[in-house]
């Protein structure tokens, strides 16, 4: 067994040193009848080749988006990941390190997290950011709970444009935290007007930009209304690349930003693991969940980094902690920060421009198909179509033609009848002109 270094001889010597006969003797505290006599009913150990074969068989049953024209977004996006990113995150010193509890020998992790926090603060336009959370949806739920602690209020407005997974995650957390989460219905008419629903009990409003339908919003008026009622504005960002081309939430007046960072450095990986982002005003840091890295000096006066403000966290505060979170999403945050460092200011903004241009080209091409309406007036790299037939069937039929042609909104909003004919499509720098033509052809065929 290739992962186990002990030899039979080692085991004998060690057992003798301990003064027992067998390994089983070391399990004597286990109730005897609960101790299994032999291996459980599962396959026995396998060599590397056999395991690889099994996984290639799993993979072969799937359609890889890399091999076909693919236009799926909805909170997970396919972007180009430079080769250096995956090479660097697989360095053993990053991959196989633990949480940096011994800072003298974890400066690598601590420094990249400090750089990550700074990058996240910069792109969101906020004062500070934490060292990451699980994903966008849980980050959204944590932002909600944080806003309630900060305002000592319990009512939360969830925009109808917030990603349904994020919305329902926040609703689940709210139920158990005894918060009063009010989900606003999804709508095309632009009549949500959360600013008219604010009151002295409202802790926060959570809105997504661009929203789940792809629409881009100027949130400054909402921010002003929130400020007037002592309500915090939480802005959710599901496609972080949009921040290269859209005014940042901080500049629009957000108090807390929660986001999903998968688009930078991380493959969609069937939905996880990804990296949750959280940024906020500096005065809120003591109510922020998750790890924070801070700068300090060592005994020789050299600059170094440590985990700080740990008294917020579960291992010290126990039941009074800001959250039960122990981990962050370290390796995904590393991939994020390396990719963003490679892009730099110019590259990040260029990437956003390319995405927008591809989406514009796609929208123009699809709008020319009879029976197809592009519903968005504004979008970044994703928008909604109305089809003359149920979108779920159209997507299945396109898949049969070898095109992953978008997400039927019914899949995200099954209770919203208007969603039946709505299709969400995204274009990134990965989509060529040929891909766009392939989608246009497939869509024309299935709606004809």
């Amino acid at each position, binding site marked *: 067994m290739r992962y186990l270094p002990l030899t039979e001889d080692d085991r004998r010597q060690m057992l003798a040193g301990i003064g027992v006969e067998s390994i089983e003797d070391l399990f004597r505290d286990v109730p005897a009848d609960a101790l299994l006599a032999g291996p459980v009913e599962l396959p026995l150990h396998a060599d590397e080749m056999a395991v690889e074969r099994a996984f290639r068989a799993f993979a072969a049953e799937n359609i890889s988006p890399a091999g076909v024209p693919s236009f799926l977004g909805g909170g997970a996006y396919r972007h180009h990941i430079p080769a250096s990113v995956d090479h660097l995150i697989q360095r053993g010193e990053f991959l196989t390190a633990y949480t940096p509890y011994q800072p003298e020998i974890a400066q690598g992790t601590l420094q990249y997290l400090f750089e990550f926090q700074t990058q996240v603060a910069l792109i969101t336009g906020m004062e500070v950011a934490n060292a990451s959370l699980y994903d966008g949806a849980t980050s959204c739920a944590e932002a909600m709970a944080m806003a309630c602690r900060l305002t000592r209020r319990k009512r939360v407005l969830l925009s109808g444009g917030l990603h349904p997974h994020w919305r329902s995650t926040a609703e689940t957390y709210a139920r158990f935290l005894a918060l009063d989460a009010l989900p606003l219905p999804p709508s095309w008419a632009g009549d949500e007007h959360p600013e008219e629903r604010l009151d002295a009990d409202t802790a926060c409003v959570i809105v997504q930009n661009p929203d789940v339908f792809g629409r881009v919003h100027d949130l400054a008026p909402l921010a002003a209304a929130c400020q007037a009622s002592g309500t915090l504005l939480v802005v959710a960002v599901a496609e972080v690349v949009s921040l290269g081309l859209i005014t940042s939430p901080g500049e629009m007046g957000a108090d807390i930003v929660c986001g*999903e960072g998968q688009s930078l450095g991380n493959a969609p990986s*069937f939905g996880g693991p990804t990296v949750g982002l959280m940024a906020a005003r500096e005065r809120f840091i003591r109510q922020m969940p998750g790890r924070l890295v801070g700068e300090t000096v060592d005994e020789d006066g050299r600059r170094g980094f440590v985990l700080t403000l740990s008294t917020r966290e579960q291992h010290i505060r126990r039941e009074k902690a800001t959250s039960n979170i122990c981990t962050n999403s370290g390796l995904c945050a590393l991939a994020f920060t390396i990719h963003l460092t490679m892009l730099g200011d110019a590259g990040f903004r260029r990437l956003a421009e390319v995405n927008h241009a591809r989406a514009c080209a796609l929208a123009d091409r699809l709008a020319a198909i009879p029976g197809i309406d592009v519903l968005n*007036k504004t979008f970044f790299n994703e928008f909604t179509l109305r089809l003359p037939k149920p979108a779920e069937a159209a997507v299945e039929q396109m898949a049969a033609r070898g095109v992953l042609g978008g997400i039927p909104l019914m899949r995200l909003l099954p209770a919203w009848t208007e969603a039946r004919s709505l299709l969400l499509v995204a274009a990134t720098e990965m989509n060529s002109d040929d891909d766009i033509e392939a989608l246009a052809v497939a869509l024309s065929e299935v709606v004809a």
Partner: protein
Amino acid sequence: MTGSMKTISGHRGLMLEEPLIFEQGSPEKTAVDLPAPPSPSGGDRLGPVRRERPIGLPGLSEPEVVRHYLRLSQQNYSIDSGLFPLGSCTMKHNPRLNEKLARLPGLGDLHPLQPASTVQGALRLMHTLAHWLTTLTGLPAVAMSPAAGAHGELVGLMTIRAALEDRGDPRRRVLVPESAHGTNPATAAACGYAVQSVPGDARGRVDLEKLRAALSPDVAAVMVTNPNTCGLFENDVRLIAEAAHEVGAFFYCDGANFNAIVGRVRPGDLGIDCMHLNLHKTFSTPHGGGGPGSGPVVLSAALAPFAPVAFVAEENGRFRLVEHGMHADGKPVGRVKGFHGQFGMFVRALAYMMSMGADGLRQASGDAVLNANYILAELQGTFSAPFAGPCMHEALFDDRFLKDTGVSTLDLAKALIDEGFHPMTVYFPLVVHGAMLVEPTETESKRTLDRFIATMKGLAERALAGDEAFFRESPRLSPRRRLDETRAARKPVLRWRPPAETAPEPMETAGEEVGRAAE
């Protein structure tokens, strides 16, 4: 003293100093070439919110990026570097086969919202992993979506609360032993429960009588870590389960230490109703400097209907995802995460499990326990152990043997750094004074353990010989010496900020940078 030797550059041989990206990049530089986009016909579609101002991100060329992160990596200790005996963290070898398979086209690049017909292999993989986890734990169901151990804990308690409310019996309290990991009380609070601490006994186990006394029909759950945080098997585990069940409470087991018993003991056979599994501990997925984790939670038949969405359902050999409560047969607590779970970690964990097999997993837990007991036996004469053995996968010592030496547990840990070992977990569990929790795992050779034991004994002798100053100064040979955590916490600096206009230009080399920072 090697540690204080000054060089002109700030580098010291292979120990290379590296400034922040913000101190070496420039906004116009980039390591990613992208085509210039054509201007969209008819102008952009962004509305009135086009970003007008630069962001202020530094850009670097590819060689600079590679060097930056390589140098940072070299300032980290890792499992790949050497023994990492961090108790309760299970720092076992992370096979690279797992990494390779997680990146296969058709797995790593799958979009979570592809039609089910195009991801049958991915769903079958999740279903297969679920089968392994339920078989190994002896519980009938598993919720796969929790993103980490603490998240699994939260989801487990949510299902318990939902089940109790469903039977019209909401309860208020959760009992947690005082030796528990801090997440347990934090999770219970996050789930809306009051937390009551239960003391341990002189054997390092839950005090059964005090637990019984604390149980009442108001208790929703008892949360016990087994093997516990002292590295011991709770030999009264079945009595705890019976006592909990008698008052109608559920028995939650923190499965952080499942690696000690995997393949040998099924928690379902012990009366456990609910337990999370840390795939990054027991099943070798990488810790990654602190995540991402993955924390599936196994559930009894009574709790299974309340498992969160999304989950995989099988019908006649075809698989589908149940993503909404309205499509589920049971009464899911709702959604707890985006999409369907940490799929990339599922791939890695299943690759490990298939590599090890039922026989290998059994050998792994056996070797883990053997290695820990070997350390306990070899060090017991020199170090003081608070509880009698045998231990399970980790050996616990306290600081009684350091009494009157002036040397603390922390000092000893820092001295280990200079010896080329990662320190053990220190000051946890809290119930033992000056705790040192040593978890070698099964992936360490006897030769490595012998060197560690010899080093530990040598350090203990030095402490007992009165060489307090030596320890106070440790570590000397690491990339940084002890860091001023008080300063970091009193005036938090959580991000880089551009130097004020009047400040001098950033200097060229790392050495000068560091010199400047030290002023």
